[in-house]
């Protein structure tokens, strides 16, 4: 009897909240679906779609477009989505240079932007904005964790990243926590595919290890060429260099490499187990860290829709800020600059059967905050 009454109350409460907030929400997703970075965008799109399918909420529509990894195209799509599609929320951008081109103008027009990946430092500090939420991380975070971890074993690290905003954030983040000496510091071109010149310099530098941030095809190329070069030094990097989207193409050359992330397929919590299982069932592959972040983004939006209507912008933003959803990363909350406070783990690439994947071996930071939050006056 008790349970029936309880169920009745829950049902009543749900229908009431449903009545109060059954307001349609239109989400515009701008992400990279073609070219070298497409693997990342496709994981973001697919995980977002999975969360929406599971929620089965008829009030949400998602429009998706491909930015081809080009800032000017991302800006055009954003303008079109804001002006003619009349979206309430934008999301999806992978690359920080694209985020810097789109986010300030979109949030300036009163659109809520929720980032599933890119977290450039200017948007986290002095230029933070009440309309901008980042569910993923501030760019520096994963690299900071690897800098901290490198202190254990290494004294002379060679560091390498592409020459774009997230690359700068990467090496800055690493150096913020790493205390040893640097054997060298190199910025490569974004989209570069041949690293023979850099590998030769690393060989000659007398480094005891290498930290590199090269997402997508760049990381595949670097790691394969590294294995062929015969230089025998330990590699480490943020999860982007060894995420599930690139591991099959790198092959066994990636085995044993340490990398840092806020999430891993083996992270032990209920939401994550269900997510990894559902993603594999739906798409026949393991999710990447980008997929996990996008899945959280979708569930964050759904949680806020249950609390407030999107037409009341302030109430909706307050509901987003509560972050009242079951994150696949376990504990998750927003800092004052609306970037996450979360654990960052160290993972190792392992082989399970025939599949290369990551396993958590250590926790680098607990409830880590980014370095820019103090500059954010919101």
């Amino acid at each position, binding site marked *: 009897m008790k349970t029936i009454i309880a169920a009745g109350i829950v049902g009543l409460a749900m229908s009431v909240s449903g009545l109060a907030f059954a307001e349609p929400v239109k989400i515009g997703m701008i992400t990279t*679906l073609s*070219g070298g970075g497409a693997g990342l965008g496709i994981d973001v799109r697919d995980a977002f779609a999975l969360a929406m399918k599971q929620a089965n909420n008829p009030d949400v529509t998602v429009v998706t477009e491909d930015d081809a990894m080009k800032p000017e195209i991302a800006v055009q799509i954003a303008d079109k989505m804001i002006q003619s599609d009349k979206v309430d929320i934008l999301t999806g951008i992978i690359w920080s240079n694209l985020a810097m081109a789109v986010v300030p103008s979109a949030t300036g027009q009163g659109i809520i932007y929720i980032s599933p990946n890119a977290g450039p430092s200017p948007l986290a500090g002095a230029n933070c904005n009440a309309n901008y939420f980042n569910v993923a991380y501030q760019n520096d975070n994963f690299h900071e964790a690897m800098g901290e971890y490198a202190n254990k074993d290494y004294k002379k690290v060679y560091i390498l990243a592409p020459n774009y905003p997230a690359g700068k954030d990467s090496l800055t983040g690493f150096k913020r926590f790493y205390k040893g000496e640097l054997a060298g510091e190199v910025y490569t071109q974004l989209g570069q595919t041949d690293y023979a010149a850099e590998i030769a310099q690393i060989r000659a530098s007398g480094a005891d290890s290498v930290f590199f941030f090269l997402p997508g095809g760049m990381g595949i190329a670097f790691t394969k060429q590294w294995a062929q070069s015969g230089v025998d030094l330990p590699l480490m990097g943020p999860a982007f260099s060894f995420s599930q989207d690139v591991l099959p193409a*790198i092959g066994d050359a990636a085995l044993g490499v340490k990398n840092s992330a806020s999430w891993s397929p083996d992270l032990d919590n209920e939401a994550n187990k269900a997510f990894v299982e559902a993603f594999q069932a739906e798409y026949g592959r393991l999710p990447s860290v980008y997929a996990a972040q996008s899945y959280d983004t979708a569930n964050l939006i759904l949680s806020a829709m249950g609390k407030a209507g999107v037409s009341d912008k302030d109430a909706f933003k307050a509901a987003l800020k509560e972050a009242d959803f079951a994150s696949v990363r376990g504990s998750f909350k927003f800092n004052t600059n609306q970037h996450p406070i979360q654990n960052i783990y160290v993972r190792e690439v392992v082989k399970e059967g025939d599949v290369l994947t990551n396993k958590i071996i250590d926790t680098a930071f607990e409830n880590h905050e980014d370095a820019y939050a103090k500059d954010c006056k919101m």
Partner: protein
Amino acid sequence: MQTALLIEQILNGLQFGVMLFLMAAGLTLIFGVMGLINLAHGSLYMVGAFACATVAAATGSFWLGLVASLAAAAAAGALMEITVIRRLYERDHLDQVLATFALILVFSEGTRWIFGSIPLYLNIPPLLAGAIPLPGGSAYPLYRVAIIGVGIAVAIGLHLLITRTRLGMRIRAGESDREMIGALGVDIRTLYTVVFALGAALAGLAGAMVGALQSVQVGMGEPVLILAFVVIVIGGIGSIHGALVGALLVGLIDTLGRFLLPVALATFMGPSAAASIGASVASMLIYVFMALVLAIRPRGLFAAAG
């Protein structure tokens, strides 16, 4: 500065240049003979890499993959020529650029449709997996030496083909006066298809060899295509010799620039700033060089006659 490092970087520059030559040779040959700007040349490079990765994964042999890449790229090139390109010879360059750009989109989306967006796995053959010692105690990957070797062999082969064979004679004749050799009874249509397939096969070979170094993925051809155009503009459009010299110059300038500029800048600024500014300037170097060549010799270093 260690000599060993410098030698290694020069070899890297040569290897990069040779790879660009394989792309640029086909591009410049097609432009020289047919007067056609083929933006879809990068797609043939991608076809070669995907064919090699697929066959190597199925049979376990990189060498069979390499053969497959030549065959697949030549076949794709011939098919492209017969169905689309043939209708473009009489049109102006704008129509050719539009149509071949459309071909890029068709090839990219078609490949994505068949293979998906996740990059494919292709590794170098075990036979070439080692490294050879360099003077000064350093080592250089054997596979990259093999690429340099293949590039030189292709350059010599092309030179002999064009100067010593009947086909080469027809190609040269086609470059200088296409109505005349048509009137002399040479089957121009077949000649064009053969030249196009030859250029395509060279691009496919480059794609397969580089695919083992980098990642085999949709869109891998376009960055190389831009560099190949820089090479043929520097070398002189239509000239195979120009393509060889241009490719080696671009390869060496790019590689040595990336290596030496940050070092040079670090003598008077902080290492972090030097790394960042050096990388930015190094990425512009080949375009600056191209602008210089165009200013001094507007038709390129080895401009074809006419």
